């Protein structure tokens, strides 16, 4: 089988169902030690993973290392990916987030994420048959985040892209815990309205 590396510039077109089928096939081949299949997945998703690690770590060198670690995890743990539970990309991005946040916590000498945040653990405990997202929804979500108020955007940023708990956000921003909870909930509800549209 011949793989053609995808050329990414800006937003990549994610081809939904067909792409998922191919991802599942490639992931299965990776479990068999197929390096070409692995590199095909790298070519397809490295720009997504790298964008996320760079967003979280805000340091090109650390982001590259985290991107590499993420794909090495894919190489070593591809057998844990279950195609019937959802698409490969969200699974891969969840791994990337965890890898990047662990690095961030190491740098800040904060405790690492617990195993409960491990993407595999999550999938095991809460079955999710409807995580198929598409490019259009992600793009809408991106603009919805941009349109949040500064406080709401900040609380989402700290909670999700910096991995802080609500108590840690309260401590960091000097806001009462109740305010953090309210703002986080309000921000997510606003994003959901866009998500459900």
């Amino acid at each position, binding site marked *: 089988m011949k793989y053609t590396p995808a050329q990414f510039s800006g937003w990549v077109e994610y081809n939904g169902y067909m792409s998922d089928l191919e991802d599942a096939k490639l992931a299965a081949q990776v479990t068999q030690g197929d*390096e070409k299949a692995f590199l095909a997945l790298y070519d397809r998703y490295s720009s997504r993973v790298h964008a996320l690690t760079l967003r979280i770590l805000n340091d090109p060198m650390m982001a590259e290392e985290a991107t*590499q670690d993420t794909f090495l995890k894919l190489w070593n743990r591809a057998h844990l990916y279950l195609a019937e539970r959802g698409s490969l990309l969200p699974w891969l991005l969840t791994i990337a987030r965890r890898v990047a946040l662990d690095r961030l916590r190491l740098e800040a000498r904060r405790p690492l994420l617990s195993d409960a945040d491990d993407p595999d653990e999550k999938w095991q405990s809460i079955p999710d048959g409807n995580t198929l997202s598409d490019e259009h929804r992600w*793009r809408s979500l991106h603009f919805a985040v941009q349109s949040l108020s500064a406080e709401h955007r900040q609380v989402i940023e700290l909670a999700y892209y910096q991995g802080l708990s609500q108590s840690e*956000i309260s401590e960091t921003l000097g806001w009462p815990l109740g305010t953090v*909870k309210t703002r986080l*909930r309000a921000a997510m509800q606003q994003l*959901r309205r866009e998500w459900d549209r």
Partner: protein
Amino acid sequence: MPLKEHTPFIENIPAYALGSLDAEDASALENHLKTCNSCRSELTVYRAMSEGLLAAIPPKSPPASLRRQLQSKLPSARRLSPQPLRWSWNQFALAFAVGVLVLLNAFSVFQMQSLQRQQAQLSYQLQSEQTALALLSYPGVKTLAINTDGITGTLLLDEDRNAVALFAWNLPPLPDSRTYQVWLIGAQGERVSLGLFHPEPSLPFTSFSIISSENISNFVGLGVTVEPSGGSSHPTGTRLLTVNF
């Protein structure tokens, strides 16, 4: 489940989906989720949203070098490239022990050679002294006193047997690159080498004895000079002492 009991949990679902809920609240919510279908559905939506948030970042390609680095970590590349030497603690300890043993052995060999050298020198010294004692008992042996620049001693000369025995006190020790050389001095000032000796640093005196192939009675004196190790064909170094016959 009544809405009142349900509310605190459902309010925590967005934070839980983001992984931001504090541990205690998260634990309570997880227990609730086991029995509440509507909250599980709600969580499914927020979890999909949170996954969407990860993808809602404009893609950015990593440098091309990263792909090469990653490729170099795959099994096919690792098989091609030589494996770096990695030692376990046991191997390191073993190598250290072997190193120590080699060093100890080298030290022992050095010490043994040094002892052998010392033994050979002492044996030579003993032979010289025995020769000198024997000479003393012969009639007609000349005994000449040495007293030059703080160096004292005795020279025994047996002209019948062409035997010479030299005893000297306080000879300065020499480095390995230098040696003492004994010369017979002729009437015209010519010099004939009698031999070399090196003082034993552990002994206060030095003895040198030899039966010469030359007819000693043809010579008028004896001298000692400092020469390069191995000796010289004629005196080149500092003259240490001279004895007239």
